[in-house]
């Protein structure tokens, strides 16, 4: 769910000399998916991977961003076939590993902002899906399982329950970012 976690996972293999070949998804449930990472063993230089997430107003902004990253020495990882790419675009970048500390963000503030953007996007999508589910519910297309107690409700309505769980997690994440930012106004 978090790209920090995903980044650590990829870099664990990258540090051993593996190179990411492609990322292919299995649809779990929107907006979540299960991703398969295919690595190739390589004798060439070790790499370090970073994941960015951004939304651009137009193509010229997108091109400007891509060019800036390339100018700074990052290479774009193309073989990402995630379904969710269209919903919350993530950009996978890599470069030769020197210390392993190579990063696309150089201060905590911009790093937190990036994390916050990711949370916002996932929250928006979950709420939208939840809203459309409610509409279908109101239109009597789906019948919610009648249930005994909260456990029964969750089992009977696992999809909206999962959406609510995601939304709540994202809201907690966003609040914790706000708290960190307030504690360190200087970063």
């Amino acid at each position, binding site marked *: 769910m978090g790209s920090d976690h995903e980044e650590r996972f990829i870099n664990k293999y990258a540090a051993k000399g593996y190179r990411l070949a492609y990322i292919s998804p299995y649809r779990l449930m929107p907006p979540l998916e299960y991703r398969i990472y295919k690595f190739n063993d390589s004798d060439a230089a070790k790499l370090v991977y*970073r994941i*960015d997430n*951004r939304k651009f107003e137009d193509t*010229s902004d997108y*091109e*400007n*961003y*891509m*060019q*800036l*990253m390339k*100018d*700074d020495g*990052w290479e774009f990882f193309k073989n990402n076939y995630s379904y969710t790419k269209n919903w919350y675009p993530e950009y996978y970048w890599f470069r030769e590993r020197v210390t392993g500390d190579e*990063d*696309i*963000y*150089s*201060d905590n*503030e*911009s790093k937190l*902002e*990036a994390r916050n953007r990711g949370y916002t996007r996932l929250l928006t999508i979950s709420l939208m899906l939840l809203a459309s589910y409610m509409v279908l519910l109101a239109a009597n297309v789906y019948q919610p399982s009648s249930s005994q107690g909260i456990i029964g409700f969750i089992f009977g309505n696992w999809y909206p329950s999962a959406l609510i769980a995601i939304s709540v997690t994202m809201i907690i994440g966003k609040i914790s970012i706000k708290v960190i*930012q307030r504690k360190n*106004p*200087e970063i």
Partner: protein
Amino acid sequence: MKNSQNSLTETTFLILLSFVNPKHGYAVIKEVEEWTEGRVVLAAGTLYSSLETLKKKGYIEEVYSEDPRRKMFTLTETGYKIIADDFNRMEKDVELYKKIIERKAGVENVQIQGLDGI
């Protein structure tokens, strides 16, 4: 990036100062690195976020670029005012520092001399 207590962060100040002359993003990274002799090295992602914020705040604006993939920006009038205000604040802080610390050092010198006398 935040304007905390009406002062700019050093990074923001340096980025704005670099935009006194029109240039594209990567040129800012290089210039700031050169100015600070490698002490401040901005990563591309951080700089891109910063460009977006500064654009939104109206401190910088896009100008014509021969290479459409590398957008050029320069300071707006507001941008000039922002760095000028920050410069004035820093200058006052420096004067204050000198006054306070030099006076304190002066007193300590006197005390040390006094002790030596004993």
